[in-house]
């Protein structure tokens, strides 16, 4: 805005100078107005950019503002949940017969609970866990063989009831023998259930 005003004043000043400081005559006034209006106006984008002009900041200040805006954006849109899975809650899932516990009253402030899955198979070459929590993607949560025939992985889960199964060697779907079974009216292949909540 300042630039635009400066340009206008300069044009007026230049025109008045040309009139050699004589008393304004109607023709001179008309010429003045014509000169001013005939001058090219700043483009829309130029004016838009002028409107966005801010006080200059140091590089550090600019970085801090950008980082804050990014964080506020992520948190406010739920892309990042404060404290999610940050607390090393002792997790015990189907492996021990106990059930991990953690909960917040409101869905928006849910904290994830690390939940351990354990599967025993001496013959398996690979085992993974699938469930609603990973859209039943076979390759997403591979389990690690921790000793002969014992496979495990720990997955941060939202509090609630989760249905899951193990996939052995990439194709064979197996329910967890240590956990309650879930029915499956849709596909006829029952899985297992884990209740996740905060203690």
């Amino acid at each position, binding site marked *: 805005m300042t630039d635009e005003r400066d340009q206008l004043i300069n044009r007026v000043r230049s025109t008045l100078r040309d009139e050699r400081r004589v008393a304004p005559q109607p023709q001179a006034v008309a010429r003045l107005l014509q000169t001013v209006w005939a001058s090219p106006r700043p483009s829309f984008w130029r004016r838009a*950019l002028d409107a966005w002009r801010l006080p200059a900041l140091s590089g550090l200040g600019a970085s801090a503002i950008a980082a804050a805006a990014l964080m506020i954006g992520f948190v406010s*849109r739920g892309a990042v949940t404060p404290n999610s899975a940050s607390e090393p809650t002792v997790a015990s899932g189907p492996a021990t017969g106990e059930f991990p516990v953690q909960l917040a009253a409101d869905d928006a402030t849910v904290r994830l609970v690390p939940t351990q899955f354990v599967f025993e198979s001496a013959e398996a070459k690979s085992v993974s866990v699938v469930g609603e929590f990973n859209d039943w993607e076979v390759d997403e949560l591979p389990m690690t063989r921790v000793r002969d025939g014992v496979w495990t992985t720990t997955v941060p889960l939202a509090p609630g009831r989760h249905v899951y199964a193990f996939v052995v060697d990439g194709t064979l779907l197996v329910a967890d023998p240590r956990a309650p079974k879930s029915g499956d009216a849709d596909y006829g292949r029952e899985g297992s259930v884990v209740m996740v909540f905060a203690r």
Partner: protein
Amino acid sequence: MNKTRASVLLAALVMSASVLPVALKAQAHSGTPVLAIADARTREAVTREIDRAASRGLPVRALVAKAQEGVTKQAAGERIRAAVTSLARRLEQARDLLAPSPSDAEMIAGADALAVGVPAPMLRQIRSAYPAGQSVAMPLDVLTELVARGVPASNALEQITQLMRRGATPTHIAGVGASVQSDVAAGLTPDAALEVRARGVMSLLPSPAAAAALAPRGPRP
């Protein structure tokens, strides 16, 4: 770089930083993700069903998971389609029963409850047992699990709503559900396990009169 350009660049950076998370989230939730269904006709039909559900405000993620579950379980295309359609119907029913503004988690929990045979009116009863705005996702999950373990739905509902009205938190209620699971695994009947565990939690809660006094009151006339 002069101050004007630096300021303009800074403004653009701040705007981008604010908008980026929105754009990423929109990308994650808008439109239907590519489904790994081999049969093209089934894939298109399921995609259409999911798009329809999205336009009605239903949680798309649950439907995508249901379709993908069918793929992992090597189900026939027609069966996957039927499962997704059926879940969309249950989600819509749950949304209506849990009105006025159920969260995605509540709708999914409600749909799961309906799937195991919880009668529809019970969802309304669960909703009304907690103050508006407090999530009933966990009580619904526990109700589902109890019914799935063989507790008659009416018994399970009575115990859970009683706990909720007495001021039991979702954590208390989840604790009851988990304890019942363990008890049943140890050989107790589901009904007996529920009664014992609900009574145990109830003994820790304030008396009904005190709970009523503590309960949030509605706006004054």
